[in-house]
């Protein structure tokens, strides 16, 4: 049994070891410039990862921007407002969203979301918000915006299920105290519930971020896969995970492969930090409660 437990540790060590070992030649060739370079040119063996880092960050933060308010709304509704009868089915449906494989999200996005974006949503956004410079350019649908939206749909179940859990461990007497002071239901939720659950909700959000950063297939299918840094959200982009998905099995040459593995290493380190932070936050809030089987 101890051996199996140690195997879990061994896996993490193995992941770090392999990634560090195999990314060595790229590290020696480019050093820190690897993360600042904007050129990705496999033919001349010049590799800079900045466009991918940019794409990953922008698409993930876009996803958070959309997903966070929605997830918290859903969690508040299921724990504080909805009739007990609806509670079970509602959380079941939201969990069902988490069960859909990434590739199926991508498939749906290609054939439903992209046409919707290019025909209606993007022209509308460029008419109304074009002056910001974020919504300009030809509305092809395949874009950073599409990646952000599909990621948002994918991380909503994570954030909302953790928020729900955190809200449920807020002591009942907090609610009763607020109501006894004459608070309306919303005031009770704001003062008595949400304020107490801040740290835990933050943990859920960061966990969602971790998922969004590493999400591969659906993003690869809609983001356009062009290693460029553009201000407009209508422009295609590229993420760290999707460059791995597209180019890894075709990488010729040692340096090329090594550069891709270095991107993998960077992605791994970022998600490790993000996840560790999230776990610590959630643990401090739900300590003593069931840690549950989400994620």
């Amino acid at each position, binding site marked *: *049994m101890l*051996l*199996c*437990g*140690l195997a*879990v*540790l061994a*896996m*993490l060590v193995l*992941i770090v070891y*392999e*990634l560090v070992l195999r990314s060595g030649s790229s590290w020696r060739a480019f050093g820190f410039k690897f993360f600042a370079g904007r050129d990705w040119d496999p033919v001349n063996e010049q590799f800079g990862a900045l466009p991918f880092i940019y794409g990953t960050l922008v698409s993930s933060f876009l996803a958070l921007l959309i997903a966070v*308010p*929605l*997830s918290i*709304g*859903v969690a508040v*509704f*299921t724990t504080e407002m909805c009739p007990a009868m609806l509670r079970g089915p*509602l959380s079941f*449906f*939201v*969990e*069902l969203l988490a*069960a*859909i*494989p*990434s*590739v*199926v999200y*991508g*498939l*749906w996005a290609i*054939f439903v979301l992209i046409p919707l974006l290019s025909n209606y949503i993007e022209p509308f956004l460029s008419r109304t918000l074009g002056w910001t410079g974020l919504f300009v350019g030809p509305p092809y649908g395949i874009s950073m915006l599409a990646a952000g939206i599909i990621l948002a*749909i994918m991380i909503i179940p994570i954030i909302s299920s953790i928020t729900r859990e955190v809200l449920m461990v807020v002591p009942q007497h907090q609610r009763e105290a607020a109501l006894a002071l004459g608070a309306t239901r*919303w*005031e009770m939720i704001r003062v008595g519930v949400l304020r107490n659950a801040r740290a835990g909700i933050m943990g859920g959000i960061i966990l969602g971020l*971790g*998922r969004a950063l*590493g*999400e*591969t*297939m659906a993003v690869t299918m809609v983001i356009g896969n062009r290693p460029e840094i553009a201000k407009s959200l209508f422009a295609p982009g590229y993420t760290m*995970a999707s460059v*791995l*998905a597209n180019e*890894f*099995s075709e990488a010729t040459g040692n340096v090329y492969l090594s550069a891709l*593995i270095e991107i993998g290493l960077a*992605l*791994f380190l970022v*998600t*490790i930090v993000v*996840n*560790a932070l999230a*776990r610590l936050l959630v643990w401090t809030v739900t300590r003593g409660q069931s*840690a*549950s*089987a989400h*994620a």
Partner: protein
Amino acid sequence: MPETDKASVLHTVPHIALRRRITDHAMTGVAVLTVILVLVPLFAIFAYLVYRGVGSINWAFLTQTPKPVGEAGGGMANAIVGSAFILALASILGVPVGVGAGIYLAEFGRNRLGDVIRFTADVLNGVPSIVIGIVAYAIVVLSQKHFSALAGGVALAIMMVPTIARTTEEMLLLVPQALREAAYGLGIPRWRTTLSITLRTATSGVITGIMLAFARVAGETAPLLFTAFGNQFWNLRVNQPTAALPLQIFTYAISPYDEWHRQAWAGALVLIILIVTAVAAVRFAVRRGTFGAA
């Protein structure tokens, strides 16, 4: 002065109360709206999936291998079987380790090392699946010199272990301490108690955890891209490239051919049915069984 004060109070109190009432109703409305906004894509995805998928599933799809580009017909039979094959490999590798780690955490892990392992498992749970794919590539593919079903199995197994370990631990902790003490009282050694009493009592819960992990990796595509790699033909050899349902869906979805798009939808429907059936079965079993934690 006091009179005006009184008047203003009388005027403001209902005003504030009204504003608070309106805010309260508005926020309830906003919450309902968020629920609707979240559920719309869910239903849209399922409705469209069924609409496109049902028309495309036929006997040929379930029994034939892919036809070359341009020829109509053909199916994903090799990918369905290939997925089952890779998942079986992953389960053989991952389930014993995961359950073992869970037992360690629950029965012997109330210490520093246990905390470290628990934390590691949670962190591993969040590692992007594509990174796991790289590691499986580095370990298996590079040493074998070619893509293989085994490499895919190893990648998925690494993803299964942390989930299974944590749910197994949780389920074992639900077993009443009195049962263990009763066993000790009869002079049964600790290892025997763990296997025959504790694990046995928690069986249904542990199986739930295994099924959840299984459902999670069944739809994984990213770690298979450069491990199992995909294959247009039948393969049931451990050391050869193998087709998998999610891989096939991906390849077909990004292709420019209508016939392939049709088959991608059919494949997605088959995949979803398999996964949802597994999740729903688990939920049903959990609700009926003694363990209501999930």
